[in-house]
């Protein structure tokens, strides 16, 4: 076991570092991680984060089930993932140590709050003996800090009660780690002042403990060196941190502005989608209408009603909620109304893993309805990309008069990255037209034909309130043109073909599929959604070793870009990597008769770069 050595400190330069803060749900690890991330981002590093919290709000204290973690990867180079291997683990109790230690690099730093390693704590985590005292941690550099004790000492004159004092100890860790990685304290202090301004005792206490933690690093002499991670050279621009759910919400608001519409968001709370509802409910000054419905069915149905009446209508949920929305999605397909359905995917089936990530709703998005019921499906690839994807979903919905399912996932929904804030004036306008006159022609009949189509087979969006255009829509099969109920066999076949063709024609309105890497070669790695960073990084690595491997990440999942079939043919092998049991691969095989190989993972966790890299190498070696 490496114990605390007393050698003078030198500074070690690193291109990137991954830190994980882990503790009991009540230990404030999410906050510690977020503040460290904030500071790093403001400092100028590239960042990528991965919060990982339990489904239970407060599982019994000290148990494995109650462990909450926050991983932050920061670097002086471009980063695309929250990091495969943890360089520094801050573990606030034995359960956190146990649950996270396997992810720490050999020789990595393990900083523990030794005050929380009492007999009961150890027992709750299932340790027979104290891992700090035997050779459990011999592969790592262990730093034991008496964080609870030192926090108490630092606050012995504070008017706060014992529990409130204890709650400050995460700031001790934050101060210490900030010192270790040369991060300034000012951003945290500013935040404390703002957050606890009304509660000066708490603000004073947190500030004091933060500084004590920082000073402790300087004086304790347990660390061989401190670390420096320089600013990253990101493209010029104004930056902020953004999590996927916030970006999605902003994208919806932006789309409404670009379309000159009011935004309607009908939703029913569900992890991990609720934050979109929370975010949008703060944008009332944009005339955003958020409607917390009685269930997901009402959420989508109210959105369908709002679309009929002329709002930019959106609804958001996660897997189980999408299942409930299935019948109404069919109604939106049948009535050909514009609607965006956000599905922030989580582990399934059923209630599954509410707080963990997965990509297993692709089939549900593509096919999860009765009848022949095609609609547009797109996916966002990173936290900041949710902004663009949300705008794209809205654009396609109103332009093609069809529901669009926008897939994100728990990983990018909660993960953060720096975002080069776009210039509002450069965002593309979304054209919307509503007819004001009857559209019958030639045949002498008067009236309005709600299903008279344009060259893209798109029907007019006539709004209630418009004189002379009264019409009725509904879920029954209808005659093309008039929209009147019609059960004739050939009409039904014609309508099914027409609805399918309308969606297929969207391929003309989306960009070609691009690849990163060589335009032909030995292997094409295909992915979609939140796996972008891991796949990109893995492909860059093997290309660095001289391998002819390209990466293509699919945004438009239905319809696919027109050139996609050709792209797939330009490589000797195709690997589809996804966090499910092979759903996109199944579709690609059926659509393009391509003999694609699979890399699948369903552990509620994102891919590690190394997992993808290994699979690529394995395929290339065959």
């Amino acid at each position, binding site marked *: 076991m490496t114990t605390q050595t007393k050698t003078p400190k030198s500074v070690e330069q690193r291109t990137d570092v991954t830190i994980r803060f882990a503790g009991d749900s009540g230990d404030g690890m999410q906050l510690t991680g977020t503040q460290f991330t904030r500071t790093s*981002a*403001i400092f100028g590093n590239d960042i990528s984060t991965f919060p990982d919290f339990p489904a239970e709000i407060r599982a019994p204290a000290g148990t494995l089930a109650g462990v909450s973690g926050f991983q932050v990867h920061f670097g002086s180079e471009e980063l695309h993932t929250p990091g495969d291997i943890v360089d520094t683990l801050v573990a606030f109790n034995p359960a956190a140590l146990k649950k996270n230690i396997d992810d720490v690099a050999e020789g990595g730093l393990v900083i523990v709050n030794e005050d929380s390693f009492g007999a009961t704590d150890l027992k709750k985590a299932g340790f027979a003996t104290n891992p700090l005292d035997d050779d459990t941690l011999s592969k790592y550099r262990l730093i034991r800090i008496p964080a609870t004790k030192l926090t108490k000492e630092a606050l012995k004159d504070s008017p706060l009660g014992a529990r409130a004092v204890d709650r400050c100890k995460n700031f001790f860790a934050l101060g210490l780690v900030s010192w270790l990685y040369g991060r300034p304290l000012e*951003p945290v202090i500013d935040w404390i002042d703002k957050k606890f301004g009304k509660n000066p005792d708490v603000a004073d206490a947190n500030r004091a403990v933060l500084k004590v933690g920082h000073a402790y690093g300087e004086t304790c002499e347990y660390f061989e060196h401190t670390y420096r991670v320089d600013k990253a*050279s990101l*493209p010029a*621009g104004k*930056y*902020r*941190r953004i999590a996927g759910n916030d970006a999605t919400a*902003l994208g919806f*608001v932006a789309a409404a502005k670009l379309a000159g519409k009011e935004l*309607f968001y*009908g939703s029913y709370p569900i992890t991990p989608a609720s934050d979109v509802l929370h975010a949008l409910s703060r*944008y*009332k*000054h*944009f005339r*955003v*209408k958020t*409607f917390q*419905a*009685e*269930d997901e*069915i*009402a*959420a989508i*149905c*109210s959105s*369908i*009603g*709002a*679309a*009929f*009446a*002329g*709002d930019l*209508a959106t609804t958001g949920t996660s897997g189980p909620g999408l299942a409930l929305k299935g019948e*109404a999605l*069919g*109604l939106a397909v049948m009535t050909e109304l514009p609607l965006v359905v956000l599905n922030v995917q989580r582990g399934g089936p059923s209630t599954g893993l509410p707080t963990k990530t997965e990509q297993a709703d692709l089939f549900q998005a593509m096919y999860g309805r009765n009848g022949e019921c095609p609609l547009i499906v797109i996916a966002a690839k990173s936290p900041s990309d949710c902004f663009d994807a949300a705008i794209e979903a809205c654009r396609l919905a109103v332009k093609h008069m069809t529901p669009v399912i926008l897939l994100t996932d728990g990983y990018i929904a909660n993960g953060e990255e720096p975002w*080069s*804030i*776009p210039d*509002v004036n450069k965002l593309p306008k979304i054209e919307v037209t509503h007819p004001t006159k009857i559209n019958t022609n030639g045949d002498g009949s008067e009236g309005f034909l709600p299903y008279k189509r344009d060259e893209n087979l798109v029907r007019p969006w006539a*709004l*209630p*309130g*418009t*004189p*002379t*255009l*009264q*019409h*009725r*829509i*509904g*879920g*029954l099969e209808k005659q093309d043109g008039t929209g*009147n*109920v019609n059960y004739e066999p050939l009409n039904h076949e014609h309508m099914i073909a027409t609805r399918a063709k309308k969606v297929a024609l969207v391929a003309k309105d989306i960009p070609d599929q691009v690849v990163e890497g060589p335009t032909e070669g030995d292997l094409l790695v295909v992915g979609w959604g939140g796996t972008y960073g891991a796949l990109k990084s893995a492909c860059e690595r093997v290309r660095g070793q001289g391998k002819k491997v390209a990466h293509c990440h699919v945004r438009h999942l239905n319809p696919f870009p027109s050139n996609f079939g050709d792209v797939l043919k330009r490589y000797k092998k195709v690997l589809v990597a996804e966090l499910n049991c092979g759903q996109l691969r199944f579709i690609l095989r059926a659509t393009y008769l391509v003999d694609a190989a699979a890399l699948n993972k369903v552990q509620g966790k994102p891919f590690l770069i190394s997992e993808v890299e290994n699979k690529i190498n394995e395929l290339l070696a065959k």
Partner: protein
Amino acid sequence: MSTEALPQLTAKDFASDQEIRWCPGCGDYAILAQVKKVMPELGIPLEKMVFVSGIGCSSRFPYYMNTYGFHSIHGRAPAVATGVKLANPELTVFVVTGDGDGLSIGGNHLIHAIRRNLDVNILLFNNRIYGLTKGQYSPTSEIGKKTKSTPMGSVDNPLHPLSIAIGAEASFVARTVDRNVQHMAQMIKRAAEHKGTSFIEIYQNCNIFNDGAFLFATEKDQKDDTTVYIEHGKPMIFGKDNDKGIRLNGLEPEIVSLKDGTTKEDDLLFHDEKLAEPSLAYMLSRMRYPEFPEPMGVLRCVDQPLFELGMQKQIDDAIKAKGPGKLEDILLEGDTWDV
């Protein structure tokens, strides 16, 4: 709004060009006729009206109206209507639903629409049967109902639409019956004029699968003794010779005779539809044939805040406080830095 006088519309203007497909003799015809008759009296242009329905015989209704219409999916009309109204509060919105549509599959949406109190009018056609699916018992069928799905009679307890609506905090609750067209017209008009969610239960005969379910309330020789037409401020008197009344005995209603002179009108229960406390309305909703005459008329009509106005007010307040939203501002929220 245009200042020109609206052209005088007639019932005919409200008829669409679609062939009506209800069974001959169905009570739905009478309801359609009365709705078309009342609509012109509201002074609302055709294009400002939206009829939203679910699925069922009754829910075909919107196809027959020359207004905007949405025949949605089973049970979900209240939710669709909520979206329509929130998107454009200037529209006059009607929901047409059935006893199965509104109280079985859509029960949840119905109670939540009612409690929110949007200015939407809900017409529930209660024929105590599933018509469109050819005659299964419904949540309003009486115990023991023999149908295709209950050959030995149903065993589950029915629920009572008016009680549900009142329990869901309805601001307007009324009942009428398809055969009393004048009364139905009055009820529809009052519902339309009420600001807030109006809920009308309309007893509707399904002459194919549940014929005569409401004979007690429509047949000449008995209806006066089996129904009581209630009016605000008036004592509850019924009977062929207006010789019976409802009196309160403790917390229970009782039927009393006015014939022998021992009970006077003043002793009777006087209807008050405006009571803030819904107990009276609820008690009336529990009066059932054959123990009691069933109340017809407006049980409850009170002012309650409108959901859509509440939502609009928050939007207006937010704009007042923060100014009209500027995209630049929210994109720049939180910490930013320059590279």
